[in-house]
């Protein structure tokens, strides 16, 4: 096993542990901080897999912008942690954990015994220059659609989040 392999498995352990803590913690703020750790761990994995620009964007957009937005909203809403008894907790988690555990077992089994998956990944790197040129040559229309989507999201978030200053036309 090479050094890159060791780094990959260590990062994978960090990502899985942080995500598990995030989805099980009762406090929403703690969950979001664990999720930031998980995204920070995923960024070097993208770098190892040959996508330095996406690694940077993962930190800037995911761990930076999206998670800060979550933290803002959590601080704004003052969410109270309600104590719940074991029965309702079990009724919430048992179907979800059972079904996803079953599909995880099937997926891991299928991926493990598939001979085509044993091929070791090469060490390659797509420079941001080449990547940007590729995106704007092959997917320029999708870039336009993505920018339009972001604009629509901006307008929609503004419309939903405005204060109703005495106007009656609020739906």
């Amino acid at each position: 096993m090479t050094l890159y392999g060791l780094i990959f498995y260590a990062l994978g352990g960090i990502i899985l542990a942080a995500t598990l803590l995030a989805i099980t913690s009762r406090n929403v703020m703690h969950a979001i901080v664990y999720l930031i750790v998980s995204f920070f761990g995923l960024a070097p994995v993208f770098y190892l897999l040959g996508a330095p620009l996406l690694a940077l964007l993962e930190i800037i957009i995911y761990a930076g912008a999206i998670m800060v937005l979550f933290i803002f909203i959590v601080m704004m809403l003052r969410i109270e942690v309600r104590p719940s008894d074991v029965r309702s907790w079990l009724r919430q988690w048992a179907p979800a954990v059972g079904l996803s555990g079953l599909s995880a077992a099937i997926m891991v089994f299928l991926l493990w015994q598939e001979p085509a998956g044993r091929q070791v990944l090469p060490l390659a790197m797509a420079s941001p220059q080449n990547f940007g040129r590729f995106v704007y040559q092959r997917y320029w229309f999708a870039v336009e659609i993505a920018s339009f989507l972001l604009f629509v999201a901006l307008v929609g978030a503004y419309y939903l989040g405005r204060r109703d200053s005495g106007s009656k036309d609020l739906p």
Partner: protein
Amino acid sequence: MIVPYSHVLILASLLFLMGAACAGARRNLIMILVGVEIMLNAAALALVAGSLRWGALDGQAFVLFIFAVAASEVAVGLALIVYAQRRTGSVRADDYSRLKG
């Protein structure tokens, strides 16, 4: 030489199923959005690994669009949560069981 392709896919699938379990089991609306984010991230990881496996940049390009979709989804989703909380005073999914607020 990094790792076998299947190991990356196993990591991505475990991450995806954790996100799915989070979106299905939690009752807090914000935690449901967090689960969706985890699922989008796992899909991005699988796409990047496939892009390296076949030596084509298309996978990475799609990850770029996944980022755009995730950002806009979070913006609109959180705005909806704030709007719903302002109207009903709750962020628990169980409290939204009536059609007419």
